[in-house]
């Protein structure tokens, strides 16, 4: 957590020239940094055509047209959908886990990490990886859907007014 704040300070010093805000040495609230940087948010909603399983729409939002490649974006969403399908898959392994849990009056859920939780960790790692490699360099940020109750994939678009070249 401490090192994250330090990284924000680095950004702020670079941004300070164009926005003429005094460079603050001490840690400052996120809100002050938020206003100049964030432009808008795009929400990718759930796709319920196959029922209640967790699946997101692969339709490419129009606001991202200038930012990221359509193919890339659809591939990210499709991989996420596949990962969630793997988490919710009804197969031998999940039945075994369910039956074992039933026999122990579901007390093993207190000790053991479920298959779903393991896949959620995998998804978190994948999103972090995608953000680092593809989206952060383009000024975008994907938020893990679990933090939004598995309702939307929130994509934050950052203004790049201070870095106007090459877009």
């Amino acid at each position, binding site marked *: *957590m*401490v090192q*994250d*704040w330090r*990284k*924000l300070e*680095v*950004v702020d010093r*670079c941004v300070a020239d164009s926005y003429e805000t005094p460079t603050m040495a001490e*840690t400052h*609230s*996120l*809100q002050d*940094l*938020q206003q100049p*940087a*964030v432009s808008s*948010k795009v*929400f990718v909603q759930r796709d*319920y*055509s196959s*029922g*209640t399983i967790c699946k997101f729409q692969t339709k490419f939002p129009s606001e991202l047209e200038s930012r990221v490649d359509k193919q890339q974006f659809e591939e990210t969403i499709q991989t996420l959908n596949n990962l969630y399908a793997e988490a*919710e898959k*009804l197969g031998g392994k*999940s*039945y075994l*886990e*369910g*039956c074992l*849990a*039933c026999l122990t*009056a*579901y*007390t093993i*859920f207190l000790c053991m990490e*479920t298959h*779903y*939780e393991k896949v*959620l960790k995998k998804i*978190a790692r994948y999103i*972090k990886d995608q*953000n*680092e490699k593809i*989206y*952060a*360099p383009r000024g975008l*940020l994907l*938020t893990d859907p*679990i*933090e*939004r*109750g598995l*309702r939307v994939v*929130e994509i*934050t678009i*950052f203004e790049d007014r201070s*870095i106007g*070249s*090459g877009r």
Partner: protein
Amino acid sequence: MKNCDYQQIDPQALPTPTPTPPPHQGEPRAGEDKPKTPKRKWEVFPGKNRFYCDGRIIVARQSGVLPLTLGLILVTSGLFFIFDCPFLVKHLTSCIPVIGGVLFVFVVITLLQTSFSDPGILPRATPDEAADIEKQIDQTGNTSYRPPPRTKEVLINQQVVKLKYCFTCKMFRPPRTSHCSLCDNCVERFDHHCPWVGNCVGKRNYRFFYTFIVSLSFLTAFIFGCVTTHLALRAQGGKGLVFALQESPGSAVELVICFFSVWSILGLSGFHTYLVASNLTTNEDIKGSWSGKSGGEDVTNPYSHKNIFINCCSVLCGPMPPSLIDRRGFLPADESAQTGAADIELPTLAVKNEANVFLYPLDTLVTLSGAVGFQLPAIIIIILIIITVSTTFVPLHVYIHVLYELYIYFFMFLYIMCCKIDLAIIVGNLININSLYIPSCVFIYFTVFISLFHSQTVLVSIRSFCVCGCACVCVCVCVC
């Protein structure tokens, strides 16, 4: 060179309203830099739930009849182990307390899990999300009045399903999700709000609930059988039932409690087994969403796998979904300030809930006896119990009549309580209700009427007549 500035940013630390610690572990080191301890998310939870053990346990605001349920189970099982087990171990086999013990442990654990776990609550939409959805719907931009209910239609497995907009949670509800007015939350795969368990039954705790009612029906039937065997063995040799009951008074209480509850619990287990096999929820079954009553001709359940075995496995043995509300996660300091500005009453609600903890028994009493037409059956039951207890010298066939009467009252009490607590669903669809209560009540009325004419004692005949009369009054109260 300028491009590298963005790459220096750690995506986890960027200013989004999400808290920086990972979603499932509330990291305590978030509190080290801040001057005051950060709040956990359960402290600012907007629904009407109460939290204990620092957010590990979640219950509905009104605990309903949970203390009564737990009390009945503990009392009956306690009396069973104290009064019946020693005798049966001596005369039959020592497996009996073992089986009873295992069932008892199962029942209590699953009951506590159903009551204290998150039923599948959907967190409310963030302001940005809500604004985005509003933008998509409101083309005119006129927000001075509440617009008509918004719905969105989706096609699920070639079936048209309407998604409603929830004004409280500010989002379109996913399919099979319903907003519980008692808990003020949207719950996924909402089944019903169970007052006996004191919590909603939804996607995450349905399997606990089902295991609870199935094991409870086994336990009740088991205790009933054992007590009957015990009394029969004691009454052998011409000693009589009354002598047996006087030797073991606990067995009488157990007999009464088990006789009442075994039919309703068995009925409920059967009903839920039917729901599990057809992958339906109580909510959908009562509303008749997929049975063709409210819809067109070709209305089938789009969520069913068309195979009973697969339906059962997917509902009961499927992967356990995670809790979406992350009760024990930490809020970053600015987030708690933001939520404080947006919903000012939320932090004080947490304090209020803590203060109300001593008023819950009163709360329960008020709920039980609050509605109109409610006090009358409750008072009648109490009077009848007193009369029954004082008639200990009456012969056996009268005992059976008395038990039948008490049973009808209990049934009506239960029915009214369920109606009054869930009035909107039940009363509105009373003609379509697919419950086992009405047919079994009708059956009981007929048996009592027949016993009325064959009865030897005038007093019992009059009492049976009053029972039927009161039962009819109760039904009228429910319907009107």
